[in-house]
């Protein structure tokens, strides 16, 4: 099996650029998601962008713009509803997730041949990514990366110590909105490639694996980006090789997720080796 050879084909090259960018970005944002234990927020967002995708499809507009509109809407509603004392974050999530997703299902079931479309929305079609799709993904990813870089120290502070963050004068709800918007941007950027169901794996799995191996946020972020990009590349290459050489059709998006989970298991196996009691530095001093 040659893991580089498939990428001599133009559509595989586009797919590779797409998953490398998405993997690295989702890994970096995923670090904050994992540290804040917000995996369920990511999961909710993957479902709430769905009606946006469907509406855009029905109107013949860019799927990414439709997803973007609903992603931003969810991030705002989530931050607002979650701050209501009697609703709370978990109930707000469940309400938004189910109502938006069912809206999407209702809308798409009114179109002809909707099963094929539905499959594409849920699981993506990374091999069909064209030049325009790729440029759109790169633009969304660039915006997300810039926001993340500019506000990284405040987002980490808020993740570590929300009470002291507020005491220092930061508006924690505004920081929460920024993070929810970042998650929304990743979901939006990834929705065409890997579909709404699998994005959450791209966000959570590399960061969770990195957390097992890293003692610093910076190292965890570097590892999560590396795992995300590696998973994207290996997943694509493996799905292509298996499909072509062995005539077993492997969906690219799903293969990427399987590879990511493999990397996570590897990290889980390696983690105990670096946490031996003897390695606790300065225990005697």
């Amino acid at each position, binding site marked *: 099996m040659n893991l580089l050879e498939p990428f001599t084909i133009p559509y595989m090259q586009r797919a590779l650029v797409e998953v490398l960018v998405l993997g690295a970005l989702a890994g970096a944002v995923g670090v904050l998601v994992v*540290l804040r234990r917000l995996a369920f927020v990511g999961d909710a967002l993957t479902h709430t962008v769905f009606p946006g995708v469907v509406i855009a499809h029905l109107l013949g507009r860019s799927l990414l713009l439709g997803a973007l509109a609903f992603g931003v809407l969810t991030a705002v509603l989530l931050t607002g509803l979650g701050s209501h004392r009697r609703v709370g974050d978990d109930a707000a999530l469940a309400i938004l997730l189910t109502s938006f997703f069912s809206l999407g299902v209702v809308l798409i079931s009114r179109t002809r041949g909707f099963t094929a479309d539905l499959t594409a929305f849920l699981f993506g079609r990374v091999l069909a990514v064209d030049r325009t799709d790729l440029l759109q993904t790169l633009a969304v990813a660039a915006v997300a990366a810039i926001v993340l870089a500019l506000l990284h*120290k405040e987002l980490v*502070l808020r993740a570590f110590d929300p009470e002291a963050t507020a005491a220092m004068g*930061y508006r924690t709800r505004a920081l929460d909105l920024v993070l929810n918007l970042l998650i929304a941007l990743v979901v939006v950027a990834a929705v065409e490639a890997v579909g709404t169901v699998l994005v959450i794996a791209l966000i959570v799995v590399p960061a969770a694996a990195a957390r097992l191996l890293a003692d610093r*946020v910076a190292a965890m972020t570097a590892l999560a980006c590396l795992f995300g990009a590696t998973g994207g590349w290996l997943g694509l290459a493996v799905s292509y090789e298996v499909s072509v050489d062995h005539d077993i059709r492997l969906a690219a998006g799903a293969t990427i997720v399987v590879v990511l989970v493999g990397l996570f298991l590897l990290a889980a196996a390696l983690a105990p080796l670096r946490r031996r009691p003897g390695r606790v530095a*300065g225990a005697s001093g």
Partner: protein
Amino acid sequence: MAPDPTPTPAPPVLALRRATVAYERDPVVEGVDGEVAAGQSVALIGPNGAGKSTLIRAVLGLVPLTSGTIQVLGRSPQGARRQVAYVPQADTLDAEFPVSAFQVVLMGRYPRVGWVRRPGAADRRVAGRALAEVGLAERASARFGTLSGGQRQRVLLARAIAQEPRLLLLDEPFNGVDALSQDLLLAALRRLRAGGAAVVMATHDLGLAHLACDEVCLLNRHQIGFGPIGTTLTPELLGATYGGQALQLRGDGVIVARP
């Protein structure tokens, strides 16, 4: 940030006037009156649920007052936040969070560093000195969660020191803290006060209140007493604070028997 119109006398660091906080009509803490001057230290004493943490949150400007006023350096709590540092209880933080002790202390510089920019060499020097102040210079690169409870509490005090505050608020800083850490915390607090900072700490430990503070505010949902520790920690007022449970005074030490 308007300049003070009257240069003398300087406003007290903290001034409370009939300060009352309520959650949905139920008063949590009522009628707190008092002043804290530069270099002074006040212990907030009272049973669990007395409103100590709520009062601290009100001084931080994190919960609104339903009546009365709180002024910090002559300004609203929100307007004075740059001059105020808060030390939470160490065990409320995620011990698995991937940060070093030094990085936690450096967080105290973030409000001064500002948005977008990264802490510079000067900020790192201040953070390093603050960590040395609490006796943890050698543990700078240890992950926060690998430190003992007392060491974590010292790291959080160092973060507050790095903020260079004029008012320091602490929530039960001696809970679960070993004797060495307790001595180092007390010494660091003394130096902060000598440098002109005012200190307010919630505690249920009357012995430590005697060691760390010269004033006391007795609370049980409303203010029972506020004044010099020697004259305010009387059996009568303590009895009123703790609901008449048995207590003894022995020299400087006070023992309150709780159920």
